[in-house]
């Protein structure tokens, strides 16, 4: 039978494959989730939820299913659009049902299998449980899970899909969540120009290489670390509290030291995930770097990495250095991921 390789990278030799064996004659073939060797170990346990073709397809259908929301209009894909790195294109804050405005900027959905916690404040610790939050949030999809499940049971499209994915047509919350996870763990972005450079397939321009060097010299990689471009920590990067007093990580830990701290987001596909920060206050990367060089507010929980010996705050950068760093950041754009039909909404 035909083995399905759903993640293609040119040099398969380099790929570690976390695969679930697929017996001859399976009606529902397993999907191999292929991970580049320079990625950190996967956090998500594929043994507990092996990815199959039918499970992935069900997860995708659910991801783009408006019935997950109260008014039938707001799907996951509504705020997580592929061309914008699965963020809400152009929105500082996302709006859910009845145009109600959320309080934070939609995070990208990519490389989720490698994250231990989710959301800007890290309040969710298991990918399987993540979708419950937007579905039940009154300003997002505003629906209860029992209602979602009832709607899916009545929809003739779904029982057969659940049957193919899980063996029986029964629609349960656990199955819904596991199917969504199967879709999301396959959404790996590792084909940017930077990845191809790492794999020795292409060369970066001299500007991009100088940008990469500056990215390290300026210490950006201390937080935006490793292949995921995040150390998965929560930090205060000096965003002014003048217009937004969101407490961030504190709401989860209730620790004073965590006030106004937020997740260090990945920088993969950062070019297309504008606007930036937890409240989407910066329209473009230039504004972001200007903030890092001279815009930081003096807040007690400001990360010590930004406090300089002379009492000033931030990372000194010239205009030229910023231009080069941005040139490098754009090498993290993964055109294949952003246009991959396997993840696209079908019309």
């Amino acid at each position: 039978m035909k083995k399905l390789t759903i993640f293609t990278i040119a040099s398969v030799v380099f790929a570690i494959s976390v695969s679930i064996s697929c017996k001859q004659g399976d009606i529902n073939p397993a999907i191999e989730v292929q991970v580049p060797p320079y990625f950190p170990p996967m956090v998500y346990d594929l043994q507990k939820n092996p990815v199959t073709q039918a499970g992935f397809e069900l997860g995708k259908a659910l991801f783009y299913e408006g019935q997950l929301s109260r008014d039938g209009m707001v799907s996951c894909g509504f705020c997580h659009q592929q061309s914008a790195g699965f963020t809400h294109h152009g929105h500082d804050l996302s709006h859910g049902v009845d145009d109600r405005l959320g309080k934070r900027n939609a995070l990208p959905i990519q490389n989720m299998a490698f994250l231990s916690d989710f959301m800007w404040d890290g309040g969710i610790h298991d990918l399987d449980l993540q979708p419950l939050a937007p579905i039940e949030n009154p300003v997002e999809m505003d629906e209860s899970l029992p209602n979602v499940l009832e709607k899916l049971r009545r929809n003739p499209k779904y029982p057969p899909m659940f049957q193919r994915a899980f063996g029986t047509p029964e629609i349960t919350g656990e199955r819904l969540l596991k199917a969504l996870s199967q879709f999301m763990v396959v959404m790996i972005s590792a084909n940017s120009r930077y990845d191809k450079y790492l794999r020795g397939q292409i060369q970066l321009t001299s500007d991009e290489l100088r940008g990469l060097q500056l990215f390290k010299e300026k210490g950006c990689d201390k937080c935006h670390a490793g292949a995921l471009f995040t150390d998965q920590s929560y930090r205060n990067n000096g965003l002014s509290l003048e217009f937004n007093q969101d407490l961030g990580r504190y709401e989860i830990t209730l620790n004073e030291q965590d006030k106004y701290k937020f997740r260090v987001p990945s920088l993969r596909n950062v070019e297309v995930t504008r606007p930036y920060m937890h409240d989407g206050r910066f329209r473009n990367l230039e504004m972001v770097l200007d903030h890092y060089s001279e815009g930081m507010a003096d807040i007690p929980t400001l990360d010590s990495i930004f406090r300089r010996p002379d009492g000033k705050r931030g990372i000194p950068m010239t205009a030229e250095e910023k231009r080069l760093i941005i040139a490098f950041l754009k090498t993290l754009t993964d055109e294949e991921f952003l246009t991959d039909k396997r993840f696209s909404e079908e019309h």
Partner: protein
Amino acid sequence: MKTNKIFNILLISFASLSISCHKEVQPEFDPSKRGFILLEFDNVVGTRDLELNRGVYRNAAGEDFTVTQLLYYVSNIRLKKADGTEYVVPQDSSYFLVREHVPDTHVIRLSVPQGDYIGVSFILGVDSLRSTMDISRRQGVLNPTDMTREEGMYWTWNSGYIFLRLEGTSPQIAPDPAGNRRFRYHIGGFGGGFGNPPVRTINNIKKIELSFKRDVAKVRSKSTPQMHIIADVLKVFNGPNTISLAQNPTVMFSPFSVNVANNYQHMFEYHHMHTVASR
């Protein structure tokens, strides 16, 4: 003691009676066989029965209040035997949700080895281990996808269970924008342990230990003791901390919730026993 013996003799002679308070059905038992014990949770407010939406009660802060909703988890049940050992109810089947408006949930029926039991302990809430288990291990009352908004016992945005949910109204509470004078107490917090390095958060898990006092729950094949446990809602507000509803109409995941949990850990009291003869 002597009168008790006479009482027993009298009872045995009336063998047709199926229910009595201190009935010695069989002196011997076979610990390799199983029987049942029932834990009945009787929710009250001080000296009065809890009547949802109707009863008007007064707390130590001098505030009148009415309860519209009361739910709490009872989990990790252990039964203490007269010989000093414990029977631990298997973890997977040791989670119960007492819902005041559903009388069936007030009585927890446990299959246990036959024997003489002198006390019980349980967790009010859900332990941290189960709180972070895979979704497949959270069935029944723990299933976060099987909860309505009105009776939600799970925080989706801050993964974890609500251990005790108490809602109501009080004329002393300032009206909200909709004009309601409501209080909402959703108490949880399993202590954290997630994140890297692991984060410690508030831990409102309370272990409750109750002695059956002078009673012995004799679980036999033909005898099922029913242990009547009182849960006094008033203790949520009156305890080590006197809590004012007007000052704290909403208590959810916050440092203040610790005061509420430190109060409600004293709300349970073993009251009396019935013995139901099994068929």
